[in-house]
């Protein structure tokens, strides 16, 4: 073949993260909208100010059961009919409860947005919460728990939350409840939680997609506009503190062929001015398979299919007292668990001692900024980020500004942010794996005291 020199880039076409239109319905519901030409599956996100922290004492999981029960029948349709009507629109409807609140996500072809929005509005406005359906959801949830505990990544996440946070903080405990708390939930508890925390005036709807020919104002007025509820103050959110003293917790899974690693602590949320530098530094450390961690652990040593470093917002508050989880996760072969951790620590030590290079910083910025038009091709990706911003009390142009801020962040700032995100003496290490094979060699690394707990 004839070889040619590496081609140069052409002239970039500008692309900006979409600026949403913002408004409100007479019932107080906040509305964000963004027209995305060509996106024929419309994404709708509804944020309900029903945070996990609002669950009554001993009823962890009630927000989850409530969110699932929203689609189990309304004042017009029973549970089976509701599911059937939704699928007749070609729609999907998911609802999940997390620390900031309940998120209901609808996706539907634009031509059937009217019908699907009607169903969504019914689910929010007049859910039936029938006794027998709630009972079924509770039993179903109880049956799911053993599956979650058997999943190494989820097991590790639960163990880390338990280590980091005081038991009184909701975020120390599983988001969807435990066997003990879920078993106590009934339709009355679900109804009470709904009455206390679900209303249009504290909710937001985000609609994104190709809205050509759709009179969204009229459509919203006759669907979500019919939802009524008494106004209420938003509940104050807890401030989150954590215990990140260096230590190792091994969740024993005898015979496991791999060890699931989750190394973490908490940091500030996206309100902190350091956030862009931290995103950049974390990417250089472990954002992709050419980042520092995988360059050693995967591409040099072959210990893993991949290890990633990340920062993930747990809960934000309007006051800026929120928290995020800073973590490193992946799985490594059982017999190389200690050598892999040793190498991982060496990567962190080298980062602290020598810092990032300008080249690393440049490539990372080019990627993080350059991928924006790809990352936000679909309506659901745009809707998800707009909803995240609302949920985290950030301005609607946060993501748009983020790209400019990343481009302004230098190597020194990125290094400092990554080093202070992952200090060696403040990392909690959770290992889900075969304790008989890994406890002793891991203990010899001196990462901190080692405790073995039963899975």
């Amino acid at each position, binding site marked *: 073949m004839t070889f040619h020199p590496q081609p140069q880039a*052409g002239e970039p076409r500008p692309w900006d993260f979409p600026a949403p239109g913002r408004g409100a319905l007479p019932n107080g519901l906040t509305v964000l909208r963004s027209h995305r030409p060509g996106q024929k*599956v419309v994404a709708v996100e509804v944020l309900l100010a029903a945070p996990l922290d609002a669950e009554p004492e001993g009823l962890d999981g009630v927000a989850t059961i409530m969110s699932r029960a929203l689609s189990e029948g309304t004042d017009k349709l029973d549970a089976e009919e509701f599911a059937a009507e939704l699928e007749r629109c070609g729609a999907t409807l998911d609802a999940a409860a997390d620390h900031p609140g309940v998120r209901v996500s609808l996706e539907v072809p634009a031509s059937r947005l009217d019908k699907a929005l009607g169903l969504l509005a019914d689910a929010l406005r007049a859910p039936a919460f029938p006794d027998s359906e709630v009972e079924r959801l509770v039993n179903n949830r109880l*049956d799911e728990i053993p*599956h979650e505990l058997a999943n190494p990544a989820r097991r590790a996440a639960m163990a880390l939350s338990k280590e980091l946070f005081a038991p009184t903080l909701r975020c120390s405990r599983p988001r969807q409840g435990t066997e003990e708390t879920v078993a106590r939930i009934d339709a009355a508890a679900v109804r009470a939680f709904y009455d206390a925390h679900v209303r249009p005036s504290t909710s937001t709807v985000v609609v994104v997609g190709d809205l050509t020919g759709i009179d969204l104002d009229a459509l919203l007025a006759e669907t979500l506009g019919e939802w009524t509820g008494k106004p209420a103050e938003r509940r104050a959110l807890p401030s989150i503190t954590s215990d990140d003293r260096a230590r190792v917790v091994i969740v024993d899974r005898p015979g496991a062929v791999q060890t699931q690693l989750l190394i973490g602590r908490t940091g500030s949320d996206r309100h902190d001015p350091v956030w862009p530098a931290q995103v950049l530094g974390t990417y250089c450390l472990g954002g*992709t398979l*050419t980042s520092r961690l995988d360059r050693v652990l995967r591409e040099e040593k072959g210990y893993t299919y991949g290890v990633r470093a990340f920062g993930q917002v747990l809960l934000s508050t309007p006051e800026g007292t929120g928290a995020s989880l800073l973590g490193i996760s992946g*799985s490594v072969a059982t017999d190389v668990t200690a050598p892999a951790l040793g190498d991982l620590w060496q990567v962190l030590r080298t980062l602290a001692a020598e810092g990032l290079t300008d080249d690393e910083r440049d490539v990372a910025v080019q990627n993080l900024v*350059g991928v924006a038009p790809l990352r936000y091709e679909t309506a659901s990706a745009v809707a998800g980020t707009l909803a995240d911003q609302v949920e985290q009390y950030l301005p609607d142009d946060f993501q748009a500004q983020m790209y400019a801020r990343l481009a302004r962040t230098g190597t020194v700032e990125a290094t400092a942010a990554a080093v202070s995100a992952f200090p060696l003496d403040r990392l909690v290490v959770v290992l889900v794996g075969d304790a008989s094979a890994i406890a002793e060699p891991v203990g010899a690394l001196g990462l901190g005291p080692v405790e073995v707990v039963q899975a």
Partner: protein
Amino acid sequence: MGHTATPEAQSGGLTATEHRLANGLRVVLSEDHLTPVAAVCLWYDVGSRHEVKGRTGLAHLFEHLMFQGSGSVKGNGHFELVQGAGGSLNGTTSFERTNYFETMPAHQLELALWLEADRMGSLLAALDQESLDNQRDVVKNERRQRYDNVPYGTAFERLTALAYPEPHPYHHTPIGSMADLDAASLEDARAFFRTYYAPNNAVLAVVGDIDPEQTLAWAEKYFGTIPAHDGKPAPRDGSLPGVMGGQLREVVEEDVPSRALMAAYRLPHDGTRESDAADLALTILGGGESSRLHNRLVRRDRSAVAAGFGLLRLAGAPSLGWLDVKTSSGVEVPAIEAAVDEELARFAQDGPTAEEMERAQAQLEREWLDRLATVGGRADELCRFAVLFGDPQLALSAVQRVLEITPEEVRAIAAATLRPDNRAVLVYEPTGGAEAGADSDNEDEEGADQ
């Protein structure tokens, strides 16, 4: 009453042109200037079905080696250059093809074409023992992470082995066995490249904010001088009788969280009208929250945490209908099996209702629109129809074909195939103390990056 297609479903606004270079490389182009991005997708007509005994997993291991450098690209340069240009990329391997893809900001399209051509033309200049040994370890850890270290992780492998008996080319899955991965040599990898990685065994699709004339000129410039290679052996015969002719069964006693009933039904080849009918049948019976199995097992009997059907579309062998039921606490498998059989028999007898047809067609239509929502998804579909069925234009009418299927066709395919004598059954019995109820994903492809 049948389902009425939404206006956008007709061809999803999708158009494509097809070209062929002198060396046999087929090039499919599709313009869309709404967003400044462009997708490059390259399908090689080689997958795990082309592997030989003792070398299972080679096609996928080889896919990893395609990211380890080539004539003009050092080490991990392929990943570094694409990501540094603001692009995203990966590769995956399935039974019947291997694909590589980049989505780029539109002004970086030429770089992706240069990179793909460089490795198609000169991979062996960079391939060495060190990268083979390293990626072998990476792939073994991929296998552990996705299959060996998760509950029910080997179910897909076990069912496939039952449904396609030795020496069928689909008897083993793309991930391969640990022993065969250990046995793969540098010479195996070289021979694999020489045999299958040729322009006349590939289709290149470029979709998005592109100038077709310029793109075709770049394709010619970078790929045009790579020589064709005609030494590819015909794949082993994948034909099998229409039905299995008896029920195959395996009981697995493992430390899993709950009992499970899984089964693989032999279904028509992808690309046929019958396979679209089968897709609708499986959707009505086990797709989503209004399906018959969900309503029966999860809602009414409350014997299952999750119950559903999936379809693994295959062109070179019968497709697989995949049943997955995780039992509720205390429920035994025979009760589930009896209920499933009853529902399938009723459906084979009566066929779908008009409402069920409408729902299933609406669901499949939305799934199609989802695939078309990204330039990368569109490029992949164009390659799929070009490689497996010889004509990328078939992608444009795929959803229309699903919407034309009649209820009687759906009933007939269910009656012919969703029967006890046409399935391989896998039963899980937990060995641990705890026992309860849901979630596993069936993987039919392996990736270079997680």
